[in-house]
């Protein structure tokens, strides 16, 4: 385990050195991502300029959702969001090279990239988060602080699982890196807004089928001390870490079956 982490760090570090070969491009990338994602949040601010509250949520409360979700998403993407690389490997057959090495394939795919430019987005999320904390009125208790600390790792694990599911789809739709991006980026945009602005059906879908809501929404209800418009038992607000673990297990199993599919059908 420890050895695997060391090797991961070496592989990922090698990738960072490779990115630094194109230093100017790297700096431009990070800055651009940072600025572009601010435009994204600007849309939220403009919305709230016209309506003071959206479904009972203030702008700072929404920023809280947005910030935690953006940070978790960006970090998850940094770790496993390598859909372009994987699609390229599948198209060109270099996935075979990974299978010919004495390491797990998901591990190698994860270690094959660490796109630091995505830190630009995490940074933006962090700024929005600070803005949220400054303006939202939170009654800090030990439980709420613990929840806040657990929120980001939980979110990373959940988003990473979604990314892995999206990567798995590539094995069936080899040319489909666009398709799987729609899946993950779409999912993340939803978690940035309070769940009740979506329709009844979609709301159910989100709450039950895609556990995305667990990333931020339910924990946020607890931290911000809000009523759950879905009327779900309070326990739902605490089970996020377990949902994250479960989804990681599901994603792991799906990855295995995707690789089995590849090894059966061949690249």
């Amino acid at each position, binding site marked *: 385990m420890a*050895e695997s982490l*060391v*090797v991961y760090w*070496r*592989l990922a570090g*090698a990738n960072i*050195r*490779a990115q630094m*070969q194109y230093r100017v491009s790297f700096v431009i990338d990070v800055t651009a991502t940072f600025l572009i994602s601010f435009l994204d949040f600007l849309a939220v601010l403009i919305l709230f300029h016209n309506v003071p509250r959206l479904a009972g949520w203030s702008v700072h409360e929404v920023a809280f959702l947005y910030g935690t979700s953006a940070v978790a998403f960006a970090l998850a993407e940094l770790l496993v969001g390598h859909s372009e690389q994987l699609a390229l490997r599948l198209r*060109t*057959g*270099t996935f*075979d*090279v990974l*299978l*010919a*090495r*004495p*390491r*797990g394939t998901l591990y190698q795919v994860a270690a094959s990239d660490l796109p630091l430019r995505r830190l630009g987005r995490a940074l933006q999320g962090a700024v929005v988060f600070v803005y949220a904390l400054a303006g939202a009125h939170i009654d800090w208790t030990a439980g709420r602080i613990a929840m806040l600390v657990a929120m980001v790792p939980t979110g990373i694990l959940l988003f990473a699982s979604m990314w892995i599911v999206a990567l798995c789809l590539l094995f069936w739709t080899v040319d489909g890196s666009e398709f799987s991006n729609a899946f993950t980026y779409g999912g993340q945009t939803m978690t940035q807004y309070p769940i009740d602005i979506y329709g009844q059906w979609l709301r159910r879908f989100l709450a039950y089928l895609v556990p995305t809501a667990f990333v931020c929404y339910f924990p946020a209800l607890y931290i911000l001390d809000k009523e759950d418009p879905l009327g779900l038992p309070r326990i739902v607000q605490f089970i996020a870490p377990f949902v994250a673990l479960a989804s990681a297990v599901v994603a792991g199993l799906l990855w295995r079956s995707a690789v*089995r599919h590849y*090894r*059966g*059908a*061949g690249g």
Partner: protein
Amino acid sequence: MIEVDGLRKEFTLRDGRFRRSRRTVEAVRDISFSVEPGELVGYLGPNGAGKSTTVKMLIGILVPTSGHVRVAGLEPSRQRIELARRLGAMFGQRIQLWWDLPLIESFELLRHIYRIPADRYKQSLARFRDVLDLDPFLRTPVRQLSLGQRIRGELTAAMLHEPELLFLDEPTIGLDVVAKQRVRAFLQEINTERGVTVLLTTHDLGDIERLCERLLVIDHGSLIWDGGLSELKQRYSGERTLIVDLEEPAPPLQLDGATVERVDGVRQWLRFRGSAAELTARAAATLPLVDLQVKEPDIEEIVRRIYEAPKP
């Protein structure tokens, strides 16, 4: 070292993305052979014959549809990771080096991926630096290497962990004559001096003439030859070619037991069996000859004949 028995691989192709029409293609049908430790075997076949499918099943990348495979005593599809530690593979154009990094850094990374102890790594690398003359470009990013340099790097990458068995897919493709020689000499050396078993997929018949004592030939998914190079030549080289230069251009010569293959000005190519002296005498009796030569079929010719032979 390699045991293959009744190996088959079918692929299901879907025509169109959403329609349900499927058909099954047999890429490898019922292949059996075995390779002893220390052999250097050439694996030949036209494009799409099933060569790489076979090799992928030997490495454990693909799972066979049916049949038995044992490589180094392991079952590749189920013991992929264990097997990967003991074999090296180089897949022609599919590069395993890190494109943007200096060559030496790829080796460092592979050292960690394969868990090679530091002292063994040092020794191993020193040898390759010497034999493959890597020093001039060891610190150059891979993307800036020439093809020949890159192939030498790839060979090192495949061999750093000192595997017992090496799979090479087209190792000399696209190389110039000097680079080819160097790679061949290297393969010969690791085979004879270190006893590494090598399975070599190639279209380059020079590789085969120079390196392989034994050949496996596959076509349309079936093994059509398993044996020595010289037997293969004997079997398929019954026919030779007599090349004659006449005094002046003439219509194709009509001679019993010989067929004119080609006419180019005063030169004619006649394919024949049996005695060259006797045929030459008869040709000289028809028209005056200026010059002549007898050509034995080369391996290229033989392989072409095998591929073109009617399938059983």
